[in-house]
């Protein structure tokens, strides 16, 4: 039986190889006439000998070789401009021959491998799926899972998604953690507590800095008479102040100090015991401090709230955190911010006076009484929760339906319960008294198990589950019950098994033309990064998803839902590499104005801009050139744009001639493509070619050292590159890479516009400009920036605006690249040579309807490229 099965693939491979070997003679006239002069055995320019070329694309290396030749001829790059041009007929005939060879070879390969291969969920997909499966929106899992790889620019490609025993061990832990959180263990919900917390909680960082004069206690917007500002001498003895109730008298806390390595303002008196939704309210305002007087502020300041995951015993600072948001603090006019968010166990709320200058504080001889400058005041933080609108919670009901919770009486098979307690010493909130050991009760366990699994498994596996499969799980329940476990433990065992099964962990796409359920998953993971919801599953079950109108409606629905923000963040995180935003720290001497508020604002700008392109269905030229920007005050100051106040991102019309707005000149992109100290046209140019124009440059040849920019300011990068290009083997690639990089030289490491390089060595004194007056300036102004260049086709530009105009005019190329990026991400596979035609069709259809980016998404999802494996 096994012999034919072994022979068959070998036979196919041999036949395929034979089929792909086309006589080289068929190509000879074109090569002889136009190519051999430079690429024969003796000349072999670029290491290429076309006289020895065989039109054999059966192996990957040869395929890539022929593809490169095809593309060079197609783009007109070869033959070179100074050589006789081939006629149109010669060119098309030659391209057709190469095209046929490549398509044939690729078809044979794909017949064996398939395009989109079996792949597991990424970390992001896994976490989102678990969150939505159990309706626990703040569940944190991905931080515990091994990092995913990346292939073809994205992490959801099977080439990047290997799996090992480490993954499985982590999945086991994650499943257990999730089930423990989901299962209700008490007959009534935890009491809702409401706690008012001062930022100056005893034993905390803020109490300490108040003693030293980096902040003040305020009552009725005046210095607290019972705790006057620290004068020439600091307040002595924090313990005595705590005993005297200095930090518990209801005063507001005014801070002059930004968060730093030794200062982490936390609201530490509430540490979550019960995971769930909590309502957070805080009152913020800003002021100008003048040696003891509270005056009108310079404008609206911004404070950051974050969710801090306490580690260890919770002491000290620097615990991992996620940003909850930036909130306005208007001048002398308190603004109450009301936020409902999920908090996990041992989480607290962190604070930062975000818009104040980093590194500026008041320590000096006269401390607060000698300080004049801005401050941000926090009146209080109220925290209320956990908020449950139903009990048992939905996560529990997903697992156990409406089965009753009863007090556990039996001795054997007892469900394990961890003692609920306050684990962090600083937390003043306490758990409810235990009501005993409670568990789910079933009078007919196997019937209930069958019913519960009948609902759970199709949701978890994202497709119908056959009765046979369900019975296997029910049989396991029976086995566990016979082993003496209670119903809850037996069910927990099978739920865990389901969450570790390939049906859950993998994207299952059984057929070449994917079925409706797989299509529902593709749509859902494309736009929500999670499992399909009930409506998608229902439409898939009815077989209606392939109806063009229905599909279009669903794509619109998915994009309109809040969960589509996951697509925005995940796609941009990879396409534009926003995930790497913090990969380097800008040099503090050269870029002292940089802080986390700026960084987070730049990321928010890019996300909001992408959302705007989608919502307004704008065309692809907006990828590189725009007449509006999405800004908050911090970014507007950074970009030199007037009239924007506050921390919230909003659409702002740009003054004529402003290069800002589009991705190409957004500070996030300019930061990602720099190294923290200097910029180089090479990585920036390569980024533009690869990510925006869809023409990734060749990797650098071996043994060619990278160019290191001169931070002393003696020589510009352009001068260094000019020398580099003298090398003929470097010149051809740099002719393409350098121009966009030269244009972007108009922007520094943190995305600020510049006409001269910053230097820490020689140079002229730097004017302060828009840099906060509390930030010390050490850098100098070095050589002038030259942002001019010449495109490979000879067109010249003098500055960034000219370059933007040139590439914005090539909308087709920009749209084609974006179509490719969406396709790779949405279909979770790389694009091949034979995908070029479908992509061209999608782009053409999009252009017929105005070329909008939302239209592009609709055309892609309606295409066979998206709907086949």
């Amino acid at each position, binding site marked *: 039986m096994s012999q034919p099965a072994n022979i068959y693939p070998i036979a196919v491979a041999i036949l395929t190889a034979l089929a792909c070997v086309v006589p080289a003679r068929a190509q000879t006239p074109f090569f002889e006439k136009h190519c051999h002069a430079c690429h024969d055995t003796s000349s072999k320019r670029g290491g290429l000998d076309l006289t020895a070329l065989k039109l054999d694309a059966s192996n990957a290396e040869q395929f890539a070789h022929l593809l490169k030749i095809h593309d060079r001829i197609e783009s007109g790059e070869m033959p070179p401009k100074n050589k006789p041009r081939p006629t149109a007929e010669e060119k098309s005939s030659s391209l057709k021959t190469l095209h046929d060879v490549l398509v044939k070879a690729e078809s044979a390969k794909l017949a064996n491998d398939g395009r989109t291969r079996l792949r597991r969920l990424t970390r992001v997909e896994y976490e989102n799926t678990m969150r939505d499966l159990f309706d626990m929106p703040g569940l944190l899992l991905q931080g515990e899972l091994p990092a995913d790889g990346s292939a073809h620019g994205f992490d959801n490609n099977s080439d990047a998604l290997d799996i090992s025993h480490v993954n499985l061990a982590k999945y086991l832990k994650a499943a257990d953690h999730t089930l423990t959180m989901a299962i209700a263990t008490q007959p009534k919900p935890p009491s809702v507590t409401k706690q008012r917390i001062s930022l100056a909680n005893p034993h905390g960082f803020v109490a300490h800095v108040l003693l030293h004069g980096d902040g003040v206690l305020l009552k009725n917007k005046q210095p607290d008479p*019972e705790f006057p500002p620290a004068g020439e*001498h600091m*307040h*002595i*003895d924090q313990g*005595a102040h705590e*005993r*005297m109730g*200095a930090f518990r008298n209801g005063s507001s806390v005014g801070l002059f100090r930004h968060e730093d390595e030794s200062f982490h303002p936390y609201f530490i008196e509430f540490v979550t015991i019960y995971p769930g939704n909590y309502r957070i309210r805080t009152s913020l305002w800003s002021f100008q401090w003048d040696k003891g007087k509270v005056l009108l502020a310079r404008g609206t300041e911004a404070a950051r709230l974050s969710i801090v995951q306490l580690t260890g015993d919770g002491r000290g600072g620097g615990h991992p955190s996620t940003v909850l948001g930036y909130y306005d603090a208007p001048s002398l006019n308190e603004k109450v911010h009301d936020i409902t968010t999920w908090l996990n166990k041992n989480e607290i709320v962190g604070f930062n006076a975000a818009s104040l200058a980093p590194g500026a504080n008041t320590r000096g001889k006269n401390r607060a009484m000698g300080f004049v400058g801005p401050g941000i005041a926090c009146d209080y933080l109220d925290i209320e929760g956990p908020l449950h609108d139903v009990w048992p919670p939905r996560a529990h009901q997903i697992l156990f339906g409406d089965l009753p919770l009863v007090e556990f009486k039996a001795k054997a098979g007892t469900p394990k319960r961890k003692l609920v307690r306050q684990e962090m010493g600083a937390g003043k909130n306490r758990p409810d008294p235990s009501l005993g050991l409670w568990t789910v009760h079933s009078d007919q366990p196997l019937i209930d198990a069958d019913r519960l699994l009948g609902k759970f498994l199709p949701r978890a596996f994202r497709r119908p589950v056959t009765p046979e499969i369900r019975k296997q799980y029910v049989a396991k329940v029976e086995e566990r019950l016979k082993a003496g476990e209670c119903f809850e433990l037996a069910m927990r065992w099978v739920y865990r098994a389901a969450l570790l099964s390939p049906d859950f962990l993998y994207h299952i796409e059984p057929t070449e033309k994917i079925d409706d359920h797989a299509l529902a998953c593709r749509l859902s993971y494309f736009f929500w990064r999670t499992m399909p919801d009930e409506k998608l599953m229902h439409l898939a079950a009815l077989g209606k998803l392939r109806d063009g109108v229905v599909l279009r409606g669903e794509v619109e629905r998915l994009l309109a839902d809040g969960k589509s923000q996951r697509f925005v963040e995940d796609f941009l995180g990879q396409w534009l590499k926003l995930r790497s935003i913090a990969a380097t720290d800008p040099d503090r001497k050269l870029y002292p104005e940089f802080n986390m508020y700026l960084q987070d604002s730049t990321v928010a700008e890019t996300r909001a801009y992408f959302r705007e392109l989608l919502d307004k269905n704008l065309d692809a030229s907006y990828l590189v050139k725009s007449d509006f920007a999405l800004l908050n005050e911090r970014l507007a100051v950074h970009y030199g744009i007037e009239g924007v106040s506050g921390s919230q991102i909003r659409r702002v019309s740009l003054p004529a001639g402003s290069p800002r707005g589009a991705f190409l000149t957004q500070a996030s992109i300019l930061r990602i493509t720099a190294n923290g100290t200097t910029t180089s046209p090479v990585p920036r140019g390569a980024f533009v070619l690869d990510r925006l124009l869809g023409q990734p440059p060749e990797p650098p040849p071996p043994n060619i050292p990278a160019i290191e920019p001169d931070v002393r300011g003696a020589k510009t990068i352009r001068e260094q590159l000019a020398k580099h290009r003298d090398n003929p083997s470097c010149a051809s690639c740099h002719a393409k890479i350098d121009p966009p990089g030269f244009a972007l030289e108009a922007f520094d490491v943190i995305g600020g516009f510049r006409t001269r390089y910053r230097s820490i060595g020689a140079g002229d004194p730097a004017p302060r400009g828009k840099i906060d007056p509390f930030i010390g300036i050490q850098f100098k102004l070095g050589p002038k920036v030259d942002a001019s260049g010449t495109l490979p086709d000879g067109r010249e530009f003098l500055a960034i605006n000219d370059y933007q105009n040139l590439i914005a005019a090539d909308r087709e190329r920009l749209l084609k690249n974006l179509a490719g990026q969406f396709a790779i991400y949405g279909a979770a596979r790389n694009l091949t040579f034979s995908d070029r035609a479908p992509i061209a069709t999608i782009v053409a259809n999009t252009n017929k309807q105005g070329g909008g980016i939302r239209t592009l998404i609709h055309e892609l999802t309606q295409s066979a490229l998206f709907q086949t494996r």
Partner: protein
Amino acid sequence: MRILIMLGTICCLLVTPIASAQPIKHQITGLFMPERERDLREVCDKLADIKLVSINYKNAEATFDYVPAKLFPKQTPEQIVQKLDNLLRSASNSTFGVKPRCALPADKLTFVEIPAGGLDCKACCLTAYEAIYKIDGVERATANFRDGKITAWIDSRKTDRPTLETALKNRGVTIGKR
């Protein structure tokens, strides 16, 4: 008059059991600024079965109404002072207490005034006060950030000004010029 009051107090404490509440005078620690009178009243409001009658800030004394036999049954007068001290401390985050009354006549005590810097608020004054009031020989003390002065009534046989200054410096209080 003071001697009569003291004798009365001692008599009250020695007569056991006392069935009804009696005014009893104690020396109070932590009464280092005039504003502390209000704090003491707030603290005493939280105490059950004991009522603050009056405060003599100048002598750092307070008169309470309570029934020693009911509040502290079977305790000696010394033990009662100790128990009352514990009660007041736990109610005031250890900022008030009771100590045995001064055995030395007031005219035998030496008054010391130390100008101080580095006192920004009442809590800073508590630190300065605590630096000296426990020193053997210090009978009463005050610390006030408003006038920047620390004062003490000391038994000069047991302690002296330099000892007080050293203790203050060790707690971070800057000593000014006399």
